[in-house]
């Protein structure tokens, strides 16, 4: 989960890394007060979880508190890439002599975190790595051996930085590495890290991303930052349909019938498991089908949970038919999924034979499942029909049905 800049700066500050004397607010009047307190030129920055805010007019410079208020008022109303800002950050405009970069990320291949440092900051580190590779230092560090200053010293020195700058940077980079580990971050980045006229360093912007699976062990920090437990902060916000999917999945703890993503097609998908869903979604689109949604079933969900998911999809506006398909199941039971989707059709007053374009789930308890499907006249397929073929048949059927209706 990504942090807003004002939250990330707070995390940086708590780790003992110097930051500017900024203020966060959701109110233009208060922005003026913060600027007054700062008492000099300021920068007003939109707090959005999307890139390109500078280009979009989400960052503005003010010389007076009045100007700060006017900019804040404008920025608070400015939508950037479909995101409304959470607030604005009022930041003193620091006299920066040089901008540096410091970051920590995971290396999934080495299975260790890696510190990244560059004396060229303020721009995308990937661009620096491409254009001036000798200006980017990288150093892995152990997950279990002690983290020590010399590691930061090595990575900084490897980029040609020496003198008092080196000695002042070492504790900052070490602290960044430590906060990355201790807070279960997947990204911790200070960019730019500014060197001021007096030789001191200050974090001017920060990007932090905490691992979702680890949120449970950082409840205190998240609460103090004001992050709501329900906030997912995905690339786009969850739609009401997707939130309803989460509710279905949360109704009991048995298995999964959820992970719903909304699309705008006419073919509802009740699919699984993780890899199977990805494969099936691709297959439906490859055959020219238009999925109404993505979802995942797995881990042997109950009849009522499967029914809940199927109902949600069946009731989605624009959905004409559903396709119930999974890769071969060994844990999830075919008969339970069959019962769930048939129950959903019946309770909504639909004929399962008409609403279910195809049922392709082979595996555990398939004889029992197929018997139920036969009873209701639902078109089903066993493992001799590939995922791709099943998707093709579903698309063909729904396109035929649409043509007939028209």
């Amino acid at each position, binding site marked *: 989960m990504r942090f807003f800049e004002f939250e990330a700066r707070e995390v940086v500050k708590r780790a003992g890394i110097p930051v500017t004397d900024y203020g966060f607010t959701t109110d233009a009047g208060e922005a003026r007060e913060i600027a007054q307190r700062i008492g000099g030129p300021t920068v007003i920055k939109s707090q959005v979880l999307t890139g390109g805010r500078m280009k979009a007019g989400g960052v503005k410079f003010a010389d007076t508190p009045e100007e700060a208020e006017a900019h804040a008022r404008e920025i608070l109303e400015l939508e950037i890439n479909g995101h409304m800002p959470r607030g604005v950050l009022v930041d003193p405009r620091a006299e920066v002599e040089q901008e540096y970069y410091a970051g920590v990320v995971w290396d999934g291949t080495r299975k260790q975190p890696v510190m990244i440092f560059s004396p060229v900051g303020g721009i995308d580190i990937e661009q620096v790595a491409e254009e001036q590779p000798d200006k980017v230092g990288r150093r892995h560090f152990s*997950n*279990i051996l002690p983290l020590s200053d010399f590691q930061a010293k090595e990575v900084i020195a490897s980029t040609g930085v020496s003198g008092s700058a080196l000695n002042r940077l070492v504790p900052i980079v070490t602290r960044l590495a430590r906060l990355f580990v201790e807070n279960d971050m997947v990204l911790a980045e200070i960019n730019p890290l500014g060197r001021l006229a007096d030789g001191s360093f200050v974090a001017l912007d920060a990007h932090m991303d905490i691992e979702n699976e680890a949120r449970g062990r950082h409840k205190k920090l998240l609460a103090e930052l004001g992050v709501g437990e329900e906030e997912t902060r995905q690339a786009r916000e969850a739609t009401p349909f997707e939130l309803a999917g989460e509710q279905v999945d949360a109704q009991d703890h048995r298995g999964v019938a959820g992970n719903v993503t909304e699309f705008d097609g006419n073919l509802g998908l009740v699919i699984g498991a993780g890899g199977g869903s990805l494969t099936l979604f691709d297959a439906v689109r490859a055959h020219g089908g238009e999925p109404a949604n993505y979802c995942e079933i797995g881990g042997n969900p109950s009849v009522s949970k499967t029914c809940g998911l199927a109902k949600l999809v069946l009731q989605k506006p624009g959905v004409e038919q559903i396709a119930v398909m999974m890769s071969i199941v060994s*844990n999830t039971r075919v008969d339970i999924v069959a019962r769930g989707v048939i129950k959903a059709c019946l309770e909504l007053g639909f004929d399962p034979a008409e609403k279910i374009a195809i049922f392709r789930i082979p595996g555990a308890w398939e004889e029992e499942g197929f018997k139920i499907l036969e009873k209701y006249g639902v078109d089903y397929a066993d493992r001799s029909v590939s995922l791709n073929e099943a998707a093709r048949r579903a698309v063909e059927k729904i396109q035929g049905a649409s043509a007939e209706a028209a």
Partner: protein
Amino acid sequence: MSILIDADTTFIVQGITGREAVNLTRECLDYGSGAKIVGGVTPGRLGRDVHGVPVFDTVAQAVAHHGGRIYGSVVTVPPAFTKDAVFEAIENGIQLIVIVTERIPRRDVAEMVELATLRGARIIGPNCLGIIVPDVIKMGGIGGPAKNAAQAYTPGPIGVISRSGGMTTEMSSTLSAAGLGQSTAVSIGGDAIIGSSYAELMPLFEADEQTRGIVIYTEPGGRMEAELATWVTVNESRLPIVAFMAGRFMDEMPGMSFGHAGTIVEGKEDTASEKIARLAQAGIAVAERIEDIPGMIKAKITERAPA
């Protein structure tokens, strides 16, 4: 032969009294020649048994009861306790650890893997279904109940490596139906950091005489496919590889996570199209459809076979 496990492999199940673990134990005991599950561990449950397997409080007790080194462990305990359970296994001399548990934070996984490496142990997973040697042994829930596993998996020349547990079975079933059995199939897990990647398992398949070709299931997210492409090129692998890439639609949806925790497009290198290009460069064929895999791998094996 096989990789990682064979008919003589001894292992324990940590968290054996959990509902899924009880099923998994039954399945492994029933499959093939019957797994040698020499004990189970659930703290506080010493003296019980699960399908005849004795339960202990500690791994050390299980080792003492067995009277010698135990080779493997299947770990299926809640995410908050997994790291400790794996450390316990490693420090008691376990060599091969299959972690079934999902939703373990990366930091914990990285710590487990680093300790395992220091001690010469190997981790498969987390978030995986384990390993199966068709008709011989399975270690983990892979393939499900013995009857179902026997329907999908048959012995033969193909090594299968998959980031998706379910798709390991789907692909193996398709191979079996085309007369291509499997030497060993490994569900490696769907997380961003896992104990054993494709490239880390390749040397084992390379050394296995039974294996004549490799089939892998891949997804967007991470650098594991790039690592494999490099490995294959640098080591001039004797084994032809066919890959299947799921989740191509995700290229249009950066930042969104689908399927598995590790499946997210965060940068250009994570995309399906970038990965397909890299694999192709290394001579790894990428199948559009699962049903195309048997024909493709057969052709590649024939191509490489000495006349």
